[in-house]
């Protein structure tokens, strides 16, 4: 009978549905079969058979009820799926029953899957090329590419104009440059704001309509056009309260006035992450000016002008490249004097981020899957051990006709359930982690990430995570199952009843030894790192960080009228800064103001060598934090002088090299030796700062809890840098600092003194410390998690080995007990042989730990270690041995309970 496709589909769907919820219950079916038999019996009786005969014959003709039920069940569901479903339910039950094991396995797998998924997602987000714009894949960047250094160089205005005029393969060509200036509104509020100077075509390429008014049009690009500004949604809401009548209002941006022409919709931060747009006037030669703040990444950041466009319809990227190459670039320098550049057309995201479209990140994304191997190997040992304890169950199933494949698939499914739960937990962890990565990135660059980077876990990542779960189940479930059932196949079914038939092979013992060794080798380093991280979070700073407000003080570099004299601009910065500080100090609510190159705790690191080799025992020198501060800094942070003298203006004279060091650094000097007069030579990066420095005094630590070695130099009155950290201390002790009002006041003073002086990211020190503490807690909880995982698995591994050893020696123990061996001797004998792998692991791991200490300590503990704690390694080794003894307790007790008669019977 040929069946129509709909009937086939209908049957398939109903079978699928029946797999999970049978349409007809077993009871109903049994009732129907019973009715069948009743009628058959009745008929046979009617034909003259005795009731007894009738019953027997009915069953002979109609067949077995059980078999009929089985075939009906097979017809009602998808057989493979239904056994999978059964196995999964069984798996869940086993997980609940052995919850301790489940928890350990799920947590370790979840950690590995979570790290893998987060890494995969972050890589794909950062290197993603999808633009959430209409026909986003048609938007490209046109670069001036230096093939020799494989780097992008700046695009000149001339090239931009030529490309705009001549490129046939582009539907339109636009350009933008990023500027950050104070945006000063009519109410006098001044806030640094990032704007894109963009040509009108840029808006059309993005293809997003304004929410109010209009965006920049070609007329705005003319030199004599009245300056207009288009507001981003954020700026419109925060600075104008979402006022619908904002069009036509005047704002000051830097030192120029603009009229508001339009407002863009929410989430529009094109071209990268911009809140404000002003016309790019093509005639202005701003493109050769490097900006103080990068646009994003390397490519867009170094130079101002980014040229982008939309490909004409039916034009491929390759054809656009060919045309651009044929047009060439305008000559900038005499041939041979500069790099030979060539135009290159690349997808938009690649052009902005400077990511090479290489395969490495993607391979890395998949390579993190290797993290799964250690926890899976551990779980495999545990699963193998559990298979052995469930031997009788499997023996029964094999005897009833289950195939080896069926048993393997049952064990695999059980582990798959476990791995799927772990993948769920791992994805939840990954989602948290990617959110943290996003906020950390945004914190670091001080603005939102590019508009196309969406850190929500993508379906692809979820797919990847469940793929990892599948791999994990194969490693941790299928491999032990295949190995264990393979042994049964070889030794035959009769061996299954005997608990000792399975042996823990060399591979499994090797894994446990390796695991113990790995624990011992890495634990000392982990313990030290954890201790440092936790300790720094424990005590608060010795002062009230709520009393401090910090901000970055930045002076605009005027791109449009480049000042050739750097010195003049530095002097102007110094003068305005001095004025700002004087005004602040005159404020009765301000107790002190100081400036420094970096915030305490965020200073750059330099590597210092001691000229007369005081630290002869040390290999090279030390990584030390270096800050340049004014004199008021130490008073402001309440750092008393402990020895020597303060720095004075005279120390700024050429040839004078006096520095201060903090207490943590001074404590590194050998006991009884004064660090005063010690000569320090910076090497490597930052070595151009001075030839040799001499310690003039010792100050107390800044109590941020980290006790990092720090050195201070005096900030010159006219520093080279146009970016400084401003530290304001408020007088009213105990009262919480009103960051908002004080930063508004700061900005008001700065804007009044000079609109190009920006107060960037004003924050209370308390909130900075709060963030740092959160980070510390996060780090330490990860470390503690790793430690717990390592310890848990070592313990489980040791326990597995010992249980096996005892089980294997049941008969021997029984015979010895029967011959009158005292229990102490028995335990000692079990102990000595069972602890051998543990001992070997501890020994190998100890050597590993010494290796790590010898070769890697400079890298691992460069900035955190005050002194080497030699007791940690023996403590860790003792700890592992104690764990071994604890793990032995159960098996040893079982061994002593072995009944000699029973044990002998087994043989």
């Amino acid at each position, binding site marked *: 009978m040929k069946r129509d496709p709909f009937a086939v589909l209908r049957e398939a769907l109903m079978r699928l549905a029946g797999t999970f919820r049978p349409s007809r219950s077993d009871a109903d079916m049994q009732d129907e079969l019973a009715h069948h038999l009743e009628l058959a019996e009745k008929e046979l009786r009617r034909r003259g058979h005795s009731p007894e005969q009738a019953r027997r014959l009915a069953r002979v003709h109609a067949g077995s009820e059980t078999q009929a039920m089985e075939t009906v069940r097979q*017809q009602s569901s998808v057989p493979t799926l239904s056994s999978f479903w059964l196995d999964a339910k069984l798996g869940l039950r086993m997980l609940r029953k052995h919850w301790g094991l489940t928890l350990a396995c799920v947590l370790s797998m979840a950690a590995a899957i979570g790290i893998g998924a987060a890494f995969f997602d972050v890589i794909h987000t950062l290197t993603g090329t999808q633009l959430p714009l209409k026909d986003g894949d048609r938007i490209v960047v046109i670069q001036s590419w230096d093939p020799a250094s494989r780097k992008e160089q700046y695009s000149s205005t001339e090239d931009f104009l030529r490309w705009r005029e001549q490129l046939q393969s582009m539907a339109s060509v636009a350009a933008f440059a990023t500027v950050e200036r104070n945006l000063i509104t009519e109410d006098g509020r001044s806030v640094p704001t990032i704007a894109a100077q963009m040509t009108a075509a840029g808006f059309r390429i993005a293809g997003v309509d304004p929410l109010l008014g209009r965006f920049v049009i070609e007329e705005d690009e003319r030199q004599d056009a009245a300056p207009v500004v288009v507001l981003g949604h954020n700026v419109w809401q925060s600075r104008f309260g979402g006022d619908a009548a904002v069009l036509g209002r005047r704002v000051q941006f830097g030192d120029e006035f603009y009229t508001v022409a339009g407002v863009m919709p929410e989430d529009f931060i094109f071209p990268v992450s911009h809140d404000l747009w002003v016309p790019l006037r093509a005639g202005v030669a701003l493109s050769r000016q490097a900006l103080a703040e990068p646009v994003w990444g390397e490519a867009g950041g170094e130079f101002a002008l980014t040229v982008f466009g939309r490909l004409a319809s039916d034009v491929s990227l390759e054809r656009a490249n060919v045309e651009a190459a044929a047009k060439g670039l305008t000559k900038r320098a005499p041939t041979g004097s500069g790099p030979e550049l060539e135009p290159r057309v690349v997808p938009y995201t690649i052009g902005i981020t400077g990511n090479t479209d290489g395969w490495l990140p993607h391979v890395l994304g998949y390579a993190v899957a290797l993290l799964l191997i250690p926890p899976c190997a551990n779980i495999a040992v545990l699963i193998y051990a559990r298979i052995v304890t469930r031997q009788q169950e499997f023996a029964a199933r094999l005897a009833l006709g289950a195939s080896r494949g069926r048993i393997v698939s049952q064990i695999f499914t059980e582990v798959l359930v476990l791995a799927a739960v772990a993948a769920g937990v791992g994805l939840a962890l990954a989602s948290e982690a990617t959110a943290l990565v996003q906020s950390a990135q945004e914190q670091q660059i001080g603005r939102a990430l590019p508009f196309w980077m969406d850190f929500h876990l993508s379906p692809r990542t979820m797919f990847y995570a469940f793929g990892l779960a599948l791999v994990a189940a194969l490693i941790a479930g299928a491999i032990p199952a295949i190995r264990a059932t393979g042994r049964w196949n070889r030794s035959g079914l009769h061996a299954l009843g005997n608990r000792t038939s399975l042996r823990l092979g060399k591979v499994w013992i090797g894994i446990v030894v390796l695991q113990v060794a790995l624990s011992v080798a890495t634990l000392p380093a982990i313990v030290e790192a954890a201790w440092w991280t936790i300790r720094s979070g424990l005590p608060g700073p010795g002062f009230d960080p709520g009393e401090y407000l910090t901000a970055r003080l930045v002076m605009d570099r005027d791109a449009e009228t480049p000042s050739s004299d750097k010195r003049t601009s530095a002097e102007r910065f110094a003068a305005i800064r001095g004025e700002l500080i004087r005004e602040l100090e005159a404020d009765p609510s301000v107790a002190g103001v100081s400036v420094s190159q970096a915030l305490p705790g965020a200073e750059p690191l330099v590597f210092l060598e001691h000229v007369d080799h005081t630290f002869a025992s040390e290999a090279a020198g030390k990584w030390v934090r270096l800050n340049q501060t004014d004199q008021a800094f130490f008073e402001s942070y309440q750092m008393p002088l402990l020895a020597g003298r303060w720095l004075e203006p005279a120390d700024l004279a050429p040839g004078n090299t006096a520095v201060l060091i903090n207490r943590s650094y001074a404590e590194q000097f050998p006991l009884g030796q004064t660090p005063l007069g010690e000569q320090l030579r910076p090497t490597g990066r930052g070595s151009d700062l001075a030839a040799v420095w001499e310690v003039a005094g010792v100050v107390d630590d800044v109590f941020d809890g980290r006790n990092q070695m720090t050195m201070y130099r005096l900030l010159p009155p006219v520093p080279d840098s146009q970016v400084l950290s401003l530290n304001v201390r408020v007088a009213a002790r105990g009262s919480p600092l009103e960051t908002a009002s004080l930063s508004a006041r700061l900005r008001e003073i700065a804007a009044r003194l000079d609109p190009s002086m920006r107060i960037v990211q004003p924050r209370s020190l308390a909130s900075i410390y709060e963030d740092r503490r959160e980070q510390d807690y996060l780090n330490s909880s990860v470390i503690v998690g790793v430690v717990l995982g390592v310890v848990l698995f070592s313990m489980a591994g040791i326990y597995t080995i010992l249980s096996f050893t005892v089980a294997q020696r049941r008969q021997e123990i029984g015979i010895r007990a029967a011959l009158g061996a005292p229990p102490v001797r028995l335990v000692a004998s079990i102990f000595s042989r069972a602890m051998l792998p543990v001992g070997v692991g501890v020994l190998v791991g100890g050597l590993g730990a010494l290796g790590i200490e010898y070769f890697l300590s400079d890298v691992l503990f460069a900035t955190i270690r005050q002194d080497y704690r030699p007791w940690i390694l023996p403590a860790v080794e003792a700890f592992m041995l104690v764990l071994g003894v604890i793990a032995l307790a159960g098996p040893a007790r079982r061994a002593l309970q072995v009944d000699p008669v029973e044990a002998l019977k087994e043989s």
Partner: protein
Amino acid sequence: MSNEGNRRAEVLQGTLDLMILQTVNTLGPQHGYAIASRLEQVSGGAIQLNMGSLYPGLIRLEQGGYLKAEWGVSDSNRKARFYRITRAGKRQLAAGKKDWDRMVAIVAGLFGEAS
């Protein structure tokens, strides 16, 4: 199972389905035992369906939408499940009969030629 075995099962399964449909179409709604008895009767005892073949067949036809099963009361006043042919079942039966007739004609022609 070998290919040949597969093919044979398909033919038998298809024929069984057709016979069940024909029975239910002729007699009206019937329970499983009645269908089996009828087939046994008309085949002169040649077809004796056991429950392991009959009921999966009924369920298969029900899943394909050719039969509809409903609870009812049998002659012996007992709760029983009755199978009724659906419109799709009737169409399927007609198509099946046509195929069968054609096949019989072809085979008969072939054998006639040979003899």
